[in-house]
């Protein structure tokens, strides 16, 4: 400060100088000091004005704010409260300064609130809580208290706010109650639905079961027609009820998942078979491709997996009038113990509007209210799919462009199977046969060569169509003709059709031509016209390729006796039927309960079951489509025609390959001998044990196919 500086005593040696300069400097100093003082005064005044303004602002805020504001010192005495604070507690200023807000806390809350307050005081921490208070007028309110410590030279203080949140709390409580009510109602509804569905299913089983029996009786054509309608309607109703039951089971969390080994590829093809008839006469190609790395067997719930794919694929024909519908299955992710499968179902149908793509997976939602009228359905299917997918650790969603088509996705985690079944041994017929591979892609040539060599074939490969005829001719000259020629359809210089033309001009019949196309089956017809004998889509699965060649070679041998017969080209579907399909069982059993039990039991394992009500029916059903069945379970004692007679009839008709397993009553001695004598392969005793049934399927279906 200048004053202090002037008053400072001077040293002796400085005194003279000061003296000399004193007059001039003193005046100068004085002027300076006056100036300084004026500046200081001005700034003080300014500061005071600012302070006043600030106080005014604070007062205004504090008095108009919706929060109660308080300040409490270290001893717990209240130093300041605003008007709102006093209003909240229903007290005046004096009362507010002589009490503590804690005093007004509702008795039941007092203990824990005090504890928190004390703790926050001790730890100099913030406090934030909701509690009830009782005002001076004895009214209960909810308040939110927020308090923070403030440090200053004068010691610690606590400033804080109190907010009346009574309305909010009431609304919250009402909301909570309403939520609980709604949840309870929803649970009750799900439970009701589950019960109702069950109650409806039971008599429906009776309706359908007895209608089946009715059809078997003597009816005139009109009656048969009526009965068929009853049955179809019954089945439609039952499937609807099943949807509702599934949905309510999912809602109430009661759905359980099996863990059974199954073949996802098989399942995919089965679903295609199931859905194909729905396409009807529309020009729609149904395609199915399974990625090479999808495991042969996984552990999971085949029924649920199949349910989702069936639902997604089953929808496609409804919305697709031309073009194609494809199902592809890929391995998306793999861990040590699990695999994530990704199924894509694409169509070239009407598509889904952008704003509806997500909502169609919500229950009771369809893209358009008119959808239900035009296309039917409950609006539950997709919702069930999504929830099932979620429960399998995956998801279901859709992508679509209106007018161009939709792609539905479905992912699911399934357990790996510890020991994958050993690869099937190639049929001996391939042994030593010669194959020519024509493909511009070196990788493809390598893979195909490897596959064929592993099947004991001799393989030559070329990278384009130009050399094919020459190579074939040279081989013939050397007396080592090719038996089969595998030709890629899409090659840069000469495409597969041209190659086939050239080959057919030079060689009218052998070698057999097999076309490989990445364009899937849409080219199949053109290929057949070009003279191909077989068609496979890329990527080619080893087993399918081998089976196709074996089949072609086998037929060729058979055809030599029947020269000139026009052969139809094979596609992967026709080959698949011989190669792999789900186990299809014919059950001859007259008892409704046993029929239903068998269908349930076997259906759960992913097998399909056709039921025949008696021996005669069994013979009729089997002879109509003998290739359709892998195994017959035959009840021995049946009306009309018993199991023994039915078996003898089938064997007499020349059906010697179909395994027939008798189901016989334990008590009847000699049954076994009688069964074997009648031409049955084995027998199981009643009551039927689940393990025994599966053992028979394993023995007569899987081991046979594996061999």
């Amino acid at each position, binding site marked *: 400060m200048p004053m202090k500086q002037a008053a400072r005593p001077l040293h002796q040696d400085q005194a003279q100088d000061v003296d000399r300069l004193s007059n001039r400097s003193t005046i100068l100093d004085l002027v300076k000091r006056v100036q300084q003082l004026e500046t200081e005064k001005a700034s003080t005044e300014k500061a005071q004005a600012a302070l006043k303004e600030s106080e005014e602002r604070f007062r205004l805020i504090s008095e108009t704010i919706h929060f109660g504001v308080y300040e409490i010192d270290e001893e717990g005495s209240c130093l300041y409260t605003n008007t709102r604070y006093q209003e909240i507690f229903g007290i005046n200023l004096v009362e507010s300064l002589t009490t503590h807000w804690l005093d007004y806390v509702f008795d039941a809350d007092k203990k824990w609130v005090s504890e928190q307050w004390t703790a926050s005081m001790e730890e100099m921490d913030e406090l934030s809580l909701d509690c009830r208070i009782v005002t001076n007028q004895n009214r209960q309110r909810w308040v939110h208290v927020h308090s923070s410590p403030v440090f200053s030279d004068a010691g610690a203080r606590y400033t804080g706010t109190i907010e009346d949140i009574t309305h909010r709390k009431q609304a919250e409580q009402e909301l909570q109650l309403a939520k609980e009510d709604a949840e309870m109602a929803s649970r009750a509804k799900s439970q009701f639905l589950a019960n109702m569905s*069950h109650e409806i299913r039971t008599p429906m089983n009776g309706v359908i*079961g007895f209608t089946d029996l009715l059809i078997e009786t003597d009816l005139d054509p009109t009656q048969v027609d009526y009965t068929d309608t009853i049955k179809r309607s019954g089945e439609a109703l039952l499937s609807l009820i099943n949807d509702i039951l599934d949905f309510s089971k999912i809602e109430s969390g009661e759905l359980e998942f099996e863990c059974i080994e199954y073949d996802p590829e098989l399942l995919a093809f089965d679903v295609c078979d199931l859905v194909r008839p729905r396409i009807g006469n529309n020009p729609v190609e149904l395609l199915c491709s399974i990625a090479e790395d999808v495991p042969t067997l996984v552990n999971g719930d085949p029924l649920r997996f199949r349910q989702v794919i069936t639902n997604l694929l089953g929808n496609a024909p409804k919305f697709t009038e031309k073009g194609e519908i494809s199902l592809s299955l890929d391995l998306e992710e793999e861990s040590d113990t699990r695999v994530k499968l990704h199924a894509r179902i694409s169509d070239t149908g009407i598509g889904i509007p952008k704003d509806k793509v997500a909502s169609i997976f919500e229950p009771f939602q369809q893209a358009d209210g008119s959808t239900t009228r035009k296309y039917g359905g409950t609006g539950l299917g997709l919702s069930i799919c999504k929830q099932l997918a979620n429960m399998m650790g995956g998801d279901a969603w859709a992508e679509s462009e209106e007018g161009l088509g939709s792609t539905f996705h479905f992912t699911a985690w399934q357990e790996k199977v510890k020991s994958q079944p050993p690869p099937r041994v190639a049929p001996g017929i391939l042994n030593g046969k010669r194959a020519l591979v024509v493909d511009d892609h070196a990788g493809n040539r390598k893979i195909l060569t490897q596959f064929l060599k592993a099947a004991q074939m001799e393989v030559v490969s070329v990278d384009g169509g130009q050399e094919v005829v020459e190579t074939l001719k040279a081989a013939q000259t050397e007396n080592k003709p090719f038996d089969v020629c595998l030709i890629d359809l899409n090659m840069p210089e000469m495409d597969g059709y041209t190659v086939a033309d050239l080959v057919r001009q030079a060689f009218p019949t052998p070698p057999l031509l097999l076309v490989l196309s990445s364009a899937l089956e849409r080219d199949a017809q053109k290929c057949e016209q070009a003279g191909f004998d077989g068609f496979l889509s890329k990527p080619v699965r080893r087993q399918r390729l081998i089976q196709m060649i074996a089949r072609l070679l086998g037929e060729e041998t058979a055809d030599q006796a029947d020269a000139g017969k026009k052969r139809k080209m094979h596609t992967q579907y026709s080959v698949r039927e011989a190669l792999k399909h789900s186990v299809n069982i014919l059950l001859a059993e007259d*008892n*409704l*309960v*046993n029929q*239903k*039990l068998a269908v349930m039991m076997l259906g759960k394992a992913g097998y399909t079951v056709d039921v025949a009500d008696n021996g005669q029916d069994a013979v009729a059903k089997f002879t109509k489509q003998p290739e359709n069945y892998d195994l017959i379970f035959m009840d021995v004692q049946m009306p009309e025609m018993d199991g023994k007679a039915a078996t003898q009839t089938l064997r007499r008709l020349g059906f010697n390959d179909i395994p027939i397993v008798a189901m016989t*009553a334990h*008590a009847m001695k000699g049954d076994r001998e009688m069964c074997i004598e009648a031409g049955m392969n084995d027998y199981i005793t009643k009551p039927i044990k689940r393990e025994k049934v599966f053992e028979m399927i394993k023995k007569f279906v899987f081991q046979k196919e594996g061999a």
Partner: protein
Amino acid sequence: MNFKELAENLGLEVDEYLELIELFIDTGFADFHKIQEAMARSDSDQVMRSAHTIKGAAGNLGLMDVSETAKIIEENANNNQLDNLGATVATLKTQFDAIEAFVHG
């Protein structure tokens, strides 16, 4: 009756099993009436067939007592001995009623 256990033995859910039981009750009563009618006209063939049906279904569902009773009726009918079956048929009816009461509470 422990339906859960019986259902598990067959690898079924309880509600699926209940469905079978309901079907069993429906068809079982029909067969039971056939037995009564056939008894009245001494048609042992029909008695045997109907008892056989009940026996088979009950056995498969794990309802061994019903199955055993039906078996006795079947065997007797097979030997043309319908005279002393009255009590056994009554037992069968009691067993049916018990199941029905159990299911329908």
